[in-house]
Every structure is written in structure tokens, then in C-alpha cells.
């Protein structure tokens, strides 16, 4: 298992806790993640204003991975969607491939179809497998009552994801979290968007969308959220205080990355998993798992 490791923009700048915990978990499982210095933004944030530029940026990154002879592993769901969509087009649409290659010729690159793009969660399920993953666990996280948030681009648009998980009844993240012994809490708005892409357009609308989910999750009795996308984290963790003050409410709900939960079960320490960098404090929730520290 060897992948070109595509971090995107948000993770190296704002979600080092996600990157740290993902690298730890991957290493433990023998997944080799190769850093590619020349990677740039996946193109997703520019898609709304310039679809063509977004496509070219996606193709550029895929061409770099292809040059290394590697498939791509991502941590961000927006990167997953953008790169998977372009990879899908490169593999199925000759006209689109010619159009993208005409642009890439300016930087001396050429891209063919055939590069796969995989979110790390998907690699864990499909490549590592539940049994080998659980085989690395040394702690049972039975006190965690976790509400998973799939977000949107981890699964959608479904036509590009070749049958990975079911959009209207997803199971992949619950399956992974349940392996740690944590209780998975179901809740009504599980499939709802975090609102993140609207943040640069209308902050009140974006925060209102995020608030609905926080309300549902707390109401259902969860004591933690589990995420697989750094932008969802910006909404639920980074902006949780803003939501509390804007709507005069209080959650204090720790928001963890999937890789932090899996790493916790593997026995990694608080700082090794970047748990000290989460905005909403995780110390009280997780203290029993770190008695020796």
C-alpha cells in the first residue's frame, strides 16, 4: 500500500492535528504515504468561479501522481471529490483529456486515465480491512458516544465514486468507529451538509446550517463528533464558539477526526494525535484513556 499523499490547502495550514494523526495511523498499518512537493490546490475552491481552471489544477496534480506511478490518497473530502471527478473524466472522456493535456503541455506534463483517488477512510476499509485495522487496537473506547458526520463530498456525486458506500444510507464511517468499541449515535440530520462552502458568501447562513447539526447531535446524546474533512472541522470545531455566541446556546462538544479516534484506540499519545490542537477541548472526554500521561 503506497500512495501519493495529497494534503491540499486546509490541512497543512489549519488542521495539523488531522495530518499528524493520519500519518501515525497510516504508518502503524503499513500504508506508505509519499509527499509530493509540487502538488498545488486541488481546484475545488475555484470551481464555483472558474470550472475550467479547477479542472486544470486537478489534472495537474493527477499528472504528478501518475509520473510517480502512484494512486492518490487524500484526507479532505473536497479534495477527494475534485480529484476523483477529474480522474473519472480523464479515464472516461477522451475530449476532456485532450482539453486538459493541451493546458498541461505548458508545464511539460501529460496525463492519461487510470490514476485512482482514495480518501484514507476508504483505504482503511477496502485496502487494510476491518480485521487488520482492529488487530492494531489496544484500547477499547467504550465511553465514547460518537456521532459521525459524513459530509458531502466524501460520497458525492455518487456517479464518480464507483459504488463506494450508499449516499442515502452510508455505513463506512460507523463501521470504522464501531471497531474501536465506541458507541455510534444515530441522529436525524446525519446526511446534512456542514455549510462550509457558503462561509465566504454568507456567514450567517453557513453557521445556521452547522448549528442544525450540532443541535441534532447533542439532542441524540452524543459526547463527541467524528469527521473526515478539515473544512467540516472548521465549521463544527473552529466555529463552534461563534455558533454558540451567535445563537446564544452552548454545546462544548469535542469534535474529533476519524484518525484521532483510531489512533487513540491504537494507543498513541495525546500530542502524537494532535488532540491538544482541537479547538473544543478534548481533555475531559478523553482523560480516562490517558491515565499514564
Amino acid at each position, binding site marked *: 500500500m503506497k500512495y501519493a499523499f495529497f*494534503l491540499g*490547502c*486546509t490541512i*497543512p*495550514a*489549519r488542521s*495539523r492535528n488531522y*495530518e*499528524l494523526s493520519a*500519518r501515525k495511523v497510516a504508518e502503524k498499518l503499513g500504508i506508505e504515504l509519499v*509527499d509530493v*512537493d*509540487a502538488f*498545488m*490546490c486541488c481546484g475545488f*475552491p*475555484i*470551481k*464555483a*468561479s*472558474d*470550472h475550467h*481552471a479547477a479542472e*486544470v*489544477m486537478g489534472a*495537474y496534480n493527477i499528472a504528478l501522481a501518475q509520473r510517480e506511478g502512484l494512486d492518490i490518497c487524500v484526507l479532505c473530502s473536497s479534495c477527494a471529490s475534485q480529484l476523483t471527478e477529474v480522474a473519472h473524466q480523464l479515464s472516461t472522456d477522451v475530449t476532456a483529456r485532450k482539453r486538459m493535456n493541451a*493546458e*498541461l503541455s*505548458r*508545464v511539460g506534463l501529460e496525463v492519461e486515465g487510470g490514476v485512482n483517488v482514495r480518501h484514507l477512510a476508504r483505504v482503511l476499509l477496502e485496502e487494510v480491512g476491518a480485521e487488520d485495522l482492529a488487530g492494531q487496537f489496544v484500547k477499547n473506547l467504550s465511553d465514547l458516544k460518537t456521532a459521525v458526520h459524513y459530509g*458531502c*463530498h466524501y460520497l*458525492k*456525486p*455518487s456517479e464518480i465514486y464507483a459504488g463506494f458506500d450508499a*449516499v*442515502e444510507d452510508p455505513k463506512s464511517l460507523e463501521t470504522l468507529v464501531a471497531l474501536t468499541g465506541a458507541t455510534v449515535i444515530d441522529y436525524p440530520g446525519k*446526511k*446534512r*451538509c456542514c*455549510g*462550509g*462552502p*457558503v*462561509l*465566504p*458568501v*454568507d456567514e450567517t*447562513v*453557513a453557521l*445556521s*446550517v452547522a448549528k*442544525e447539526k450540532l443541535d441534532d447531535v447533542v439532542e441524540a446524546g452524543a459526547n463527541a463528533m467524528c469527521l473526515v474533512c478539515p473544512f467540516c472541522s472548521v465549521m463544527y470545531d473552529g466555529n463552534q464558539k461563534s455558533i454558540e455566541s451567535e445563537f446564544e446556546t452552548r454545546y462544548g462538544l469535542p469534535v474529533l477526526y476519524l484518525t484521532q479516534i483510531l489512533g487513540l484506540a491504537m494507543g498513541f499519545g495525546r*500530542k502524537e494525535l*494532535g488532540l491538544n490542537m482541537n479547538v473544543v477541548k478534548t481533555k475531559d472526554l478523553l482523560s480516562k484513556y490517558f491515565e499514564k500521561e
Partner: protein
Amino acid sequence: MEGIQLDRADPDFKKQLAGQPGGEKISACFMCRTCTASCPITAVNDAFNPLRIIRMALYGLKEEVLHSDFIWLCSSCYACQERCPQGVSITEFMTLLKNLAAKAGKMPAGIRAQRDIIKGEGRIYPLDDFDNKKRGKVGLPPIPTSCSMIKNLFPSE
């Protein structure tokens, strides 16, 4: 909500949209409102209503749609597109509308800023030496602080 004014309609708008990715199937819309019922944005602010935007486009209300603030409220979550019984690529259609508006120079300041910084720096959050210092402190490898390739990729920008 105001009524839709048809006297300024551009009958060719529908054809213009149908010829571009995302616009191919909008004429198949039979107004079931599954999109609007599924929309997490409509649920908190009904200024955004996918069914209404599709109808306005089909009626030819080009200026009203492309100069609107509401098209930018789409979060591109694909809830509508996944559920549309007529197979309309609604999310891609919203992206098409945003692209046409942006081409005409009409886009929110935040979206313009994102575009400019990405086309200038190759990243939405450019990294500096201080970031790499923080990365190094926790054992993460450094990331290049500039991306010269972006200028070669988009030379005219």
C-alpha cells in the same frame, strides 16, 4: 417573496444553458420540488430555492438569475442532484450559473478573493516559514512556501 416578472425574459437563455456541462437536462425538470425539500440551505434561508432558480432559468430570466446574490448560496452538497427523479445535474447546473455570473464579473467578494489567491499562490492558505516552523515542532515535514508552477499553468492571469 416577489413574483417572477416574465416581461424581461430572454428566450435563448435556455438553449445557451443546455449546450454547457450541467445545463444539458434542465428542461426535464417536472417541478416535483424534491430538490428544494432536500436542500440544507433552503431549510435555513428560503432566499435560496433550487426549484425556483431552475424555473427562472427555463423562463429565460437571465439577468435576474446571473445578477442575483442567491445563486451563490448553493453549498454544492449534491443532496438535490442525488435525489432528482429526472436526472437533472442540479449541483452542476448551479456551478454553471455561478461560472457564467463570474465570467460577467458578478461574484461575491469572498469568492473573488479565493479565486485570486489560488491563481496567484497555488494554494488557498499559502504557507510561510513560520508555518513550517510550527510543522517542524510537531514532527511534520516542511511544505514548499511558494508555487511557481501556477503562473506557468495560467500565464495570462
